[in-house]
Structures are given as structure tokens and as C-alpha cells.
């Protein structure tokens, strides 16, 4: 099928060929296969140009249900291989015209991929999100202020107090986030902080204050998760996800 495109899920060592689970299927239920080029191998499947050509792809990425099902299918393939053999997962929607182009890419990036695979070997990624707890301090007694100051002055004073309290609280949340990140980064090999999502996505409240990923030695993972469990602050609610394939640390250092 020369007109089909080639979708890349992950790149690993040539041993991937022997560890790929039989019957594994990817996007659109297409069979997943491996393209080997010397010491590297790419995990791929064929995709239809009608969905993955440049123009249809751009349109499809605007469609959340398409995006969600493609992301899930991509992840399912990566998840099926990364525990057996170290891999560098690719960003969503990396598509080549044919196998030869994939082989050429593997050859030209061999050194960078081998270095990356060394960085992630024996390590796993954990995701940590921290949400600011809504203001725990009590509201001032409005009736009392109204009697002492009159309604106009009381209104202004309440406004000022609210502003001061909000900025104090923001400072506490910030300090708590920095402490949490410092503690967790100390038990990890690498860490990365994501840009905080639009509040319309995370909901408001609770307010997302930290969205970070930590690359942790497999043997140190129970230490890491217990560090998350034991860290406490009245200002933050912490959520842990993982272990993930090393998505957040799959960066090629170009020579």
C-alpha cells in the first residue's frame, strides 16, 4: 500500500523488534510494526492520508474527539513497549511518507537517539499536579464593619482586606509550590514544569498551581511516591499520576 503514510509512536534500540507484543494495534486498529535501521528501531503503523495528510491533520487536530482517540491510541502503543525496552516516545502526529524516510531519519539521528535512550533507561516518569486550596481564612463580619464605619467606608475596607488577603494567600501558595517542587526534584534525576493550563480547563477552583513531571530511577520510585504522600501543606492539594513512559524527557540534543 504505497499510498499509506507512516505514523511514528516511539524510537528505541534494535531489540524492539523482539519485544513488540504480537497482535498490537495502533491508530485506526492498524497493525503495529517495527522499522529497524542498524542500532535503532521505530515503532510505527500505517495511517490513511485522508486523515493524516497535512491539511486533514490540521483540521482533525481541532476536533477534540479525534484528538482524544488519537492520543489514547498513541499512548496505548507506547505503553505496551516502554516497560520491556527503553523508548523515546514521539510527539503526537509525527508522520512520514514511507518507511525509507523513517530509516533515513533513524540513520541521521542515531547518535542523538542513543544518548536519549541512555538518559531514560531504567527510569520512569511521574506526573505531579498541585491545586491551590480555596482561601481557608474566614470572611470579616460585614454588619459589624457597617456599624463602625458606615456602608461606603466599610465596602472600601472590605475590598482592601480582600485584596491583601488574596495577595498573602498567593504568596503562601507560591512558597508551598516551590517547596514541593524542591523536595520532589531532590528524589528525581530530572524534572520539568509544564506551563499552567488555562483555568477554563482545570476548573476554578480548584486552581492549578503546579504541573510538573519527574524522571525517577525505577528502583527509587517507591521513595518518590512516598515523598509525594508525606508532603503536606494546608495551601495545596497534590495529585500524582504515573508511572508514565518518559514523554516529558524525550528531547533530542542536536549536535
Amino acid at each position, binding site marked *: 500500500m504505497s499510498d499509506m503514510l507512516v505514523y511514528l509512536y516511539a524510537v528505541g534500540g534494535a531489540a524492539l523488534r523482539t519485544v513488540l507484543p504480537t497482535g498490537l494495534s495502533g491508530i485506526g486498529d492498524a497493525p503495529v510494526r517495527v522499522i529497524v535501521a542498524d542500532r535503532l528501531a521505530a515503532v510505527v503503523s500505517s495511517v490513511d492520508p485522508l486523515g*493524516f495528510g497535512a491539511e486533514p491533520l490540521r483540521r482533525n*487536530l*481541532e476536533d477534540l474527539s479525534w484528538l482524544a482517540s488519537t492520543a489514547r491510541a498513541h499512548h496505548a502503543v507506547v505503553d505496551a513497549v516502554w516497560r520491556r525496552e527503553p523508548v523515546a516516545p514521539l510527539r503526537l502526529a509525527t*508522520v512520514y*511518507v514511507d518507511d525509507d524516510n523513517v530509516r*533515513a531519519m533513524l540513520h541521521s539521528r542515531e547518535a542523538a537517539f542513543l544518548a536519549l535512550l541512555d538518559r531514560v533507561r531504567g527510569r520512569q516518569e511521574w506526573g505531579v499536579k498541585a491545586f491551590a486550596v480555596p482561601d481557608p481564612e474566614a470572611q470579616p463580619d460585614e454588619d459589624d464593619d457597617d456599624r463602625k464605619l458606615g456602608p461606603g467606608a466599610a465596602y472600601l475596607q472590605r475590598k482592601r482586606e480582600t485584596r491583601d488577603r488574596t495577595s498573602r494567600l498567593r504568596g503562601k501558595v507560591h512558597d508551598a509550590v516551590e517547596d514541593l517542587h524542591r523536595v520532589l526534584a531532590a528524589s528525581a534525576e530530572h524534572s520539568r514544569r509544564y506551563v499552567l493550563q488555562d483555568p*477554563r*480547563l482545570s476548573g476554578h477552583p480548584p486552581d492549578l498551581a503546579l504541573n510538573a513531571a519527574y524522571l525517577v530511577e525505577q528502583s527509587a520510585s517507591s521513595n518518590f511516591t512516598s515523598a509525594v504522600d508525606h508532603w503536606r501543606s494546608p495551601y495545596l492539594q497534590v495529585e500524582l499520576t504515573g508511572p508514565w513512559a518518559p*514523554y516529558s524527557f524525550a528531547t533530542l540534543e542536536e549536535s
Partner: protein
Amino acid sequence: MTLARRDDDLYLIDLLDRLLAGGVVLSGDVTISLAGVDLIQISLRALISSVSRMVEP
């Protein structure tokens, strides 16, 4: 604004963080090429419009 959000949505957002902002980027020699920044903006637009639809009365 309050969103009724299922665990599945939380998982999807975590997954999209990783697949749209993480992962190896192969630009230049990728024939079907979309810049990373474009991807994130496109997907955020999709997510936001979908969330907005969810909260409409």
C-alpha cells in the same frame, strides 16, 4: 465557574500535556510537519471550545 469533570477527563488532560508538549519533535525532515507551538494552540482551542460547550446551559 464549576465544571463537572470525570476522572477520564483529568487523565486525558495529563495525556495531552505529554503528547502535545512532550515527546521527541522531529522537524525539518518530517514530511507532514506541524510546529510544536501550532499543535498546542490547536489542541487548546479544541479543548476550550469543547469545555465551553459543556458548560452552556
